[in-house]
């Protein structure tokens, strides 16, 4: 068969299957697919075997081209999204610190969560938010949410909705105003934190729905940080963790755990302190891996765990191809003719 014909057939198959999948989604014919552990294992073995086969072919001086590499990357990133296997995730002390802060609390304790990010950082921070909120619900803690970024409170609402639907809870289980409150966005960065130190109410006259502060049972008796048992800050930049540490921790002595994007995490890391000298943060979650770790601790598997598996698969594929490339090079008598294949 001519290449052209094959391409057309593949294209047609793709179109048909995506239309089928889409129509199926709309009409509820399917609700997505998931491979069982054994099928996942078989797929992994097949992938590994195919890599070995490529290695053998390379040893026979039959080099694979870049399209094969592309194909493998695509497959390695897609398939894990359908798998139901557990990747061994090693929980770091930093993330455990954030979790321990929640574990130490009695039911009914008040947790303050500040959402200082926007949708652009959601892939990394949203899973953290969901895991933290889920754990709070699980432990019957009171959640007080606010945002120093304009889009923050909206992210909080989305995270709570997602967690509740995954845990199968309704609005009767998590009562707004009693178990959860969203104070909304407040401009002013560190000044907001400073003023909250003397009075929450002076900063937030009402919640984001417009209900007056005193009409919300959950916060009616919360005057300032002294009534808060634990705080978590999810941050993608400024204002964020640095401001919460400098004003909240240093000036008002709050107990703070933080979640950051991978880009931002290294700048915040010094606040963790050292063995000899404990730092200003009780814990820190950084990037996708931090999110996957907190998901593991809270037993609330979300996107981060799934994405981490994809990421690890892709890394292994890259490493495998580096090895194959070197084998090819040494087999080829170290000739530099390998360019451009």
């Amino acid at each position: 068969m001519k290449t052209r014909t094959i391409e057309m057939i593949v294209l047609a198959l793709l179109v048909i299957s995506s239309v089928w999948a889409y129509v199926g989604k709309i009409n509820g014919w399917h609700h997505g697919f998931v491979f069982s552990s054994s099928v996942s294992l078989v797929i992994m073995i097949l992938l590994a075997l195919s890599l070995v086969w490529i290695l053998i072919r390379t040893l026979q001086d039959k080099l694979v081209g870049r399209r094969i590499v592309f194909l493998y990357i695509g497959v390695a990133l897609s398939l894990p999204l359908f798998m139901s296997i557990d990747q061994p995730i090693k929980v770091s002390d930093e993330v455990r610190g954030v979790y321990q802060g929640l574990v130490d609390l009695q039911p009914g304790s008040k947790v303050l969560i500040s959402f200082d990010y926007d949708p652009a950082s959601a892939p990394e921070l949203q899973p953290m938010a969901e895991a933290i909120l889920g754990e709070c619900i699980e432990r019957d803690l009171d959640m007080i949410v606010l945002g120093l970024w304009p889009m923050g409170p909206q992210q909080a609402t989305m995270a709570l909705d997602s967690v509740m639907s995954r845990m199968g809870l309704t609005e009767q289980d998590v009562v707004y105003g009693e178990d959860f409150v969203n104070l909304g966005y407040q401009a002013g960065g560190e000044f907001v934190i400073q003023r909250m130190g003397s009075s929450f109410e002076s900063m937030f006259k009402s919640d984001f729905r417009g209900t007056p502060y005193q009409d919300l049972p959950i916060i009616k008796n919360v005057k300032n940080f002294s009534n808060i048992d634990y705080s978590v800050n999810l941050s993608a930049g400024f204002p964020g963790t640095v401001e919460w540490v400098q004003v909240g921790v240093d000036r008002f002595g709050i107990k703070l755990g933080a979640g950051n994007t991978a880009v931002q995490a290294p700048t915040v890391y010094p606040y963790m302190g050292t063995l000899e000298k404990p730092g200003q943060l009780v814990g820190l979650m950084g990037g996708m891996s931090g999110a996957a770790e907190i998901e593991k601790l809270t037993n609330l598997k979300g996107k981060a765990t799934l994405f981490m598996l994809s990421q690890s698969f892709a890394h292994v594929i890259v490493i495998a191809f580096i090895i194959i490339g070197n084998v090819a090079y040494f087999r080829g008598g170290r000739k530099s003719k390998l360019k451009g294949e």
Partner: protein
Amino acid sequence: MEHLTFWGHFGVWVAAFLTLGIYSFLYRDNPWYKFTEAVFIGISAGYWVVVLFFDNFYGKFWVGRGEEPMLWIGAILGLMMLMRLVPKIGWIARWPLAFIVGATSGLWMMNYLTSNAMSQVQSTIMPLFGEGFGASFGEIIGNLIIIVGTFTGLIYFFFSKEHKGAFGATARVGIWGLMITFGAMFGYTVMSRMSLLIGRVDFIFRDWLGLIQ
């Protein structure tokens, strides 16, 4: 079950069509990619014309033209630029170019000298064993590598001397230091690049096709 309007369905399909159009380039150049490329060029060029017009022309010139007579100099230089369209006096367009080259060189020269050269030298001047002997063994090795690496790296960039003998050997150490840097940076970026693609794959299989549970 989802309840979307016609435009909702249309939007998702357009996004999917364009996304796959870009990725089809990985297989080979094809009409699908060419179409996507053409859409992208047209839309983005138009986008930037409009944004530059409102931000720079309207926001920076038109609004302040009354109070800041200096702004007219910018506008006049800009008009000279357009003289290129008139073949006879096209050469006048070189004046604004000359202005830009002078300003860029002058301003960047000082910025680079302070933030690149001087501040990096300053932060390399550090005690080998840490302040007050506080460094661990690992840190001492680290400090030593930073100092030696920076020094030999600079030797590598030296233009006045051929890389021969002891000088050449030192420069060689410098190259190795640079290669470690490049390798480490490459390895580090692989990670973040993969998560970019995961986002798009998730869009295709979850948001578009609904195949992921």
